[in-house]
């Protein structure tokens, strides 16, 4: 995790209510009681995030936790009441309208929960819409549009209208459209929540396949903890407008910051979150067949269980860093926690 920070927010607040601005100017860091007393609603309270280049950063929270508000503050669709949003070092909250338009045209892409496709345009026209507002020559835009449609696997549907497509296909259009301008940062606001569970699964796989090719910096919003664990490099958990914990899925499971977080992690199969490195016995004195330290237990469980004795664990460079055996895996698969 040595990549540079792409987007970060510092002490971002979003308060709703009369005179929210003057309130925040006089109380630099108000507590819940003060906010309530002033008759305001704190949709986002003192959010601090650092999103690194190329990572999938998931913001997880139940409805009303402020996750959608936060992501809209990051893209400045909603004006934050206070704080800074730094994008490659520039404070977006202080950018002029014209600068903001430039940022959005070239640096940002966004996918929406209910797809937000324009009903009067065809798939192709929808996809190239961000290019048409930039007045890019039509031939060039069409060419680029066909490329991204191909990328999301919608060839042959270019001239259909959104209402003629299934939900999954519509969201593919939404994804293609958000990628057409080759953004640096990619916001996805609950992109798969409106889809059926089977389709959702398929789209998650598709999303991972795309990311493996594109390596975008991603801010992904969801209310589904399983989805978060499945996709995230790191997860921020929000409750009542506050960020409670920012950690990798594994850290969340191993060391939940509050009861609220552990409540989420309780029902997640450990084997799908924990990596080999969390369970191995340290030391380099083993010489069985090697498995990777970064692999999830569920991926290698079969291999470990079918092997008598310990397997050696190697890091990214192929160096042996420890060993793991059947007993450790069994305690994760069948026990209640599996931490030794």
């Amino acid at each position, binding site marked *: 995790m040595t990549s540079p920070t792409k987007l970060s927010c510092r002490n971002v607040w979003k308060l709703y209510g009369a005179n929210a601005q003057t309130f925040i100017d006089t109380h630099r860091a108000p507590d819940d009681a003060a906010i309530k007393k002033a008759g305001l609603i704190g949709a986002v309270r003192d959010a601090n995030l650092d999103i690194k280049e190329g990572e999938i950063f998931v913001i997880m929270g139940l409805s009303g936790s402020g996750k959608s508000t936060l992501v809209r503050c990051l893209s400045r669709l909603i004006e934050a009441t206070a704080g800074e949003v730094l994008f490659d070092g520039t404070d977006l909250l202080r950018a002029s309208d014209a600068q903001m338009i*430039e*940022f*959005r045209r070239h640096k940002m892409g*966004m996918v929406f*929960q209910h797809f937000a496709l324009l009903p*009067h345009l065809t798939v192709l026209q929808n996809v190239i819409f961000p290019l048409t507002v930039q007045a890019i020559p039509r031939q060039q835009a069409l060419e680029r549009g066909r490329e991204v449609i191909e990328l999301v696997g919608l060839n042959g549907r270019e001239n259909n209208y959104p209402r003629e497509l299934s939900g999954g296909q519509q969201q593919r259009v939404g994804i293609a459209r958000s990628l057409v301008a080759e953004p640096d940062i990619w916001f996805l606001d609950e992109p798969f929540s409106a889809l059926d569970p089977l389709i959702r699964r398929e789209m998650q796989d598709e999303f991972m396949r795309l990311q493996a090719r594109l390596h975008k910096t991603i801010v992904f919003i969801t209310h589904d903890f399983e989805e978060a664990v499945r996709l995230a490099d790191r997860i921020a958990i929000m409750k009542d407008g506050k960020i409670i914990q920012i950690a990798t899925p594994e850290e969340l499971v191993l060391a939940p910051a509050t009861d609220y977080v552990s409540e989420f992690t309780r029902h997640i199969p450990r084997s799908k979150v924990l990596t080999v490195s969390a369970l191995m016995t340290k030391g380099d004195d083993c010489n069985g067949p090697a498995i990777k330290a970064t692999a999830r237990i569920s991926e290698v469980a079969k291999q470990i269980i079918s092997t008598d004795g310990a397997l050696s664990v190697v890091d990214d460079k192929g160096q042996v860093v420890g060993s793991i055996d059947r007993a450790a895996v069994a305690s994760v698969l069948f026990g209640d926690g599996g931490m030794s």
Partner: protein
Amino acid sequence: MSSAIGKISPVVWFLVALTLVLGVYGDDIAGALNVGWIMEYPSALVIPFKTSITAAMKWLVEDAHVGPVSFTDITRAIAWLIEQPYNLAISLLATGFQQGQGSSAVTVVPAISWITVIAAVVALGHYCRDWWLAMLTGACFLYLAVLGQWDSAMVTLASVMIAVPIGAGGGLLVGIWAYRHPTGERFLSPVLDLMQTIPIFAYLVPILFMFGFGPVSALVATIIYATPPMIRITTLAIKAVDPEIVDFGRMAGSTKRQLMWRVLVPSARSSIMVGVNQVIMLTLNMVIIASMIGAGGLGFDVLAALRRLDIGAGFEAGIAIVVLAIAVDRLSQAFAVRVGQYSATETVQGNWLARHKRTAVVLAILLVTYALGRFLPALHEYPEAQTLTTGEFWDDLVRYLNVNYFDAFEGIKIFFLTWLMLPIKKFLLGVPWPWAIAMLVLLGWRTGGVRLAILCGVLSSLIVVAGLWDKAMITVYLCGASVIVATVIGVPLGVMAALNKRAGHVISALIDTLQTLPSFVYLIPVVMLFRVGDFTAMVAIVLYALAPAVRYAAHGVRSVDGELIEAGRVSGCTNWQLLRMIRLPMALPEILLGINQTIMLALSMLVITALVGTRDLGQEVYIALTKADTGRGLVAGLAIAFIAIIADRLISASARGARIRFGLEAKT
């Protein structure tokens, strides 16, 4: 229903009873106590609003100017701007392009032939939907030709073609402006309320002053009348665009203008087209009234016939308006649907001719009729000898009905007059005005709080101070009686339409037709059967104002939550109990809104019924129009608007109260 309305307290009963007693014995009590002023507001204290308004109007037209530009220059400029396209449309459709003045005028290029126009509407019908619509619109226009209404109909169509783009385009722009400026919208909303509730007649007079007698005045009045709903619908439609789509538009990096014209307006376009359809219907509605200040065409024919009491001719021209309205309405509705849906099939490749087959055919017909028209005049103008007339048939029919069923009609009329209308009239005129105002204030306070109470008090006091109380009461009586009848007929019809599918189809077809008819048309048959008078006015108003009562009741009953009905069924309700205990109470807020709309329509019809000799504010406005008395017309018009506003606010507040009680709306 008592559970829905809540327990009625004894105080309310007492007040209602007291009001009734005052209504019946008010005159006697006032006489006995020697306080005549509570019955009749002293004329010495009447504030002469009308003279001041007339004076102000005179100043505006004669003296007002900014720098060297006088007010009349501005109105003339507006008139000129409207006149140019209008002249073009009239020349194209009706008169042809002429050179020279008066009788020495020579037609250079004749108007588009009737065959071409019919071909064009058929093509348009086919483009908008299918051959059925094409046949319907074609038949409508053919009817106009065969019945000899062609020339007048084309004059009317020309003014529709001018008024609709200006009204719809202007409405769109103002609506967008209101969307962008919420403060502006707050200011605009009451203005729109007034524009929609002041009877059109009231502003015909000032328009007449400013623009003179002629088609331009008529167009201006039509545009003022037809634009407000477009403004409203535009703002609402844009507000209703999914917020995610707005977010997307901004994230794509749209500028403000791109966001509006490429994202918001296209996303809202099917709703916006409903507004355009409204503009078209209101424009056609205005046709007859506009003819009073100089619009020619079908409206003028109806008005002239009505003045001569030439039932046959009036009916024929009236039906021609209806036929035109139906054709234009169906076309624009189909167009709205077409714009709302997007099909993938319409990507025909090829040259211009292949992509525009329909246009090409119409153009070909146009050229052929021009070329051959020189030798065969029938191609240009429908031959007069071939026209049919049904005028005599209608005259005969009315004569027959009147000779044979006179007693029956008279019986109905007398029954309603004695048992419904006269008691209401006597009661309303009997209630002393201070008491009536007090009751209105109380009602306002109970339903909508202090602000509504103040509104009711101020508006009703203004009517008194203007010296129009008695006329206002007659207005309330005529309108009230009509609304009662319309509700008694309309709500059960609506409930029936909601509960029975087949009845629903029949009733909605009936209501659709009633709503397509221009308001004047109702007068003609009713006058034929019942002659002039209050009863005739009431029947015409009921016919005109019935539609919303039916529609809203049907909608209210239909949209009762299905689970509630099931819960009722499971508890063992009979169908009748379901209706009485679940459906009707839950539909009450909608029914109230329907009655509210009925009242609004009834009030707007009042002025038109002035033609059949009523004695209310509508008559006052009509007289002012014939005497070109600006002040008198505006004051009476405003009084009608005040009544409408009071009724509207009281009913909306109680409908809202009901919705809050049912948990359908949050209390703020």
